[in-house]
């Protein structure tokens, strides 16, 4: 059984926002909201400044607090790819999942249910890449099975230096950022 994850090469990302636009278009994300976004992190002191550009989204954590706190089972781990998904018709809009996510990756859809990145599973089942990965002009995003040692994402994680976001939060995020 696959365990889908993503690897993003921050040294190639130029913050062009194509991934954001592709996601909004593909998933018809309502105006004013986004499932993925760009973060620029600057550290250090002049003249030694270090900048990391990241395309961020739901981390589809291995230990997802949003799934644990959901009172109706609307937030669940999908068997295909072990991704975290939301069933809108089960969601009561209590917002506990929004409060439980240390990445603030969720929002409330104008129709009232919690919404977030799905890793474009509707495309993945068709053999396509998630929209954000497919459109990236610098090819800095990779999608695949983290449990397959021969997948491109597994090889990149093994061969390159990188990190996940807030590993100390204990959620075991599945998006790896290469540095």
């Amino acid at each position, binding site marked *: 059984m696959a365990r889908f994850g993503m690897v993003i090469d921050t040294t190639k990302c130029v913050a062009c926002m194509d991934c954001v636009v592709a996601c909004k278009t593909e998933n018809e994300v309502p105006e004013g909201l986004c499932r993925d976004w760009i973060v620029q992190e600057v550290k250090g002191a002049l003249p030694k400044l270090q900048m990391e550009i990241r395309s961020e989204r739901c981390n589809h954590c291995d230990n997802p607090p949003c799934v644990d706190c959901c009172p109706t089972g609307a937030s669940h781990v999908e068997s295909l790819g072990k991704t975290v998904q939301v069933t*809108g018709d*089960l969601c*009561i809009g209590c917002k*506990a999942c*929004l409060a439980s996510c240390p990445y603030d990756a969720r*929002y409330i859809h104008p129709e009232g249910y919690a919404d977030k990145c799905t890793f474009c599973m509707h495309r993945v089942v068709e053999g396509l890449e998630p929209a954000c990965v497919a459109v990236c002009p610098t090819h800095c995003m990779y999608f695949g099975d983290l449990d397959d040692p021969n997948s491109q994402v597994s090889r990149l994680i093994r061969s390159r230096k990188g990190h996940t976001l807030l590993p100390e939060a204990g959620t075991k995020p599945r998006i790896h950022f290469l540095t």
Partner: protein
Amino acid sequence: MHELTSTRANHLIDPSLHVWEWQIPVYLFLGGLVAGMMVISGYFLLTGRHKRTRCACFMLPSLSLILLSLGMFALFLDLEHKLYFWRLYTTFEILSPMSWGSWILLLVYPAILANLLLRLPAPLEVAFPRLQRVSDRLVEYPMFVKWVGGVNMVLGSLLGVYTGILISTLAARPLWNSALLGPIFLLSGMSAAAAFVHMIAREVEERELLAKADNGFLMAELIFIALFVGGLATSTQVHQQAAGLLLGGPYTAVFWVFVVGLGIVFPLVIQLLAVNHKIQHTPVAPILVMLGGLLLRFVIVSAGQVSHWIGN
């Protein structure tokens, strides 16, 4: 420097989480208040105080039903997908405190109704004489009365603790991430309930008893609040930052002056003087206790949403 710039500007999320407004603190307060009233009225039933005709315990079930329903309505107002609320009762999610809470609430209503049945309010007595006959039969069974009292105490305690656990399990918000919130909210609910019953009690001796009990709850609450803040302040960096919201940060004045000072310490002093017969019992202390309890929920819910993990 360490600077983060994000293109995200999602409603309710950015610049800082603000998903829960007045409805949730009101729901948590009323839930805690009713929890305390269930424990108190259950205690009165267990100890035989209900045999006194003027016992305040007879007023508590009907008031509990009204207040709990108001709290549930506030919760309903907060839901974004309101017409789907019934989905709560199509499953039981063992890891979700909210799922536990919704099922506990489903048990709480019949427990309060059973309590109500032991002594029907006057309008119901007139309107439903058959129900009155059932009520008269039921009180003849002391074991049934004790059983209702015990169940009300247990469910009341669960409800009170649940109001704190509900948010304390949301570890992404460091201020909430303390197991002490459960007992703090339970004690605050007990204290607010004791204050409320103190105000409506008709017997002086009952008022004395409730004031003494309230003093105990307030003292215990003070200790737990000190442990809660101390625990956060001596924990990891994110928890220290969360504690900073109450220790020098934007919530400092409202928390220490209004919640702790005017909501706990000042009424505690007044009630200590009253139970030692230095001054008379007045509604001042109970009102302050209840306002303090309500404000405690507002501060914790609001400050908790502001607290976050470093780098996010």
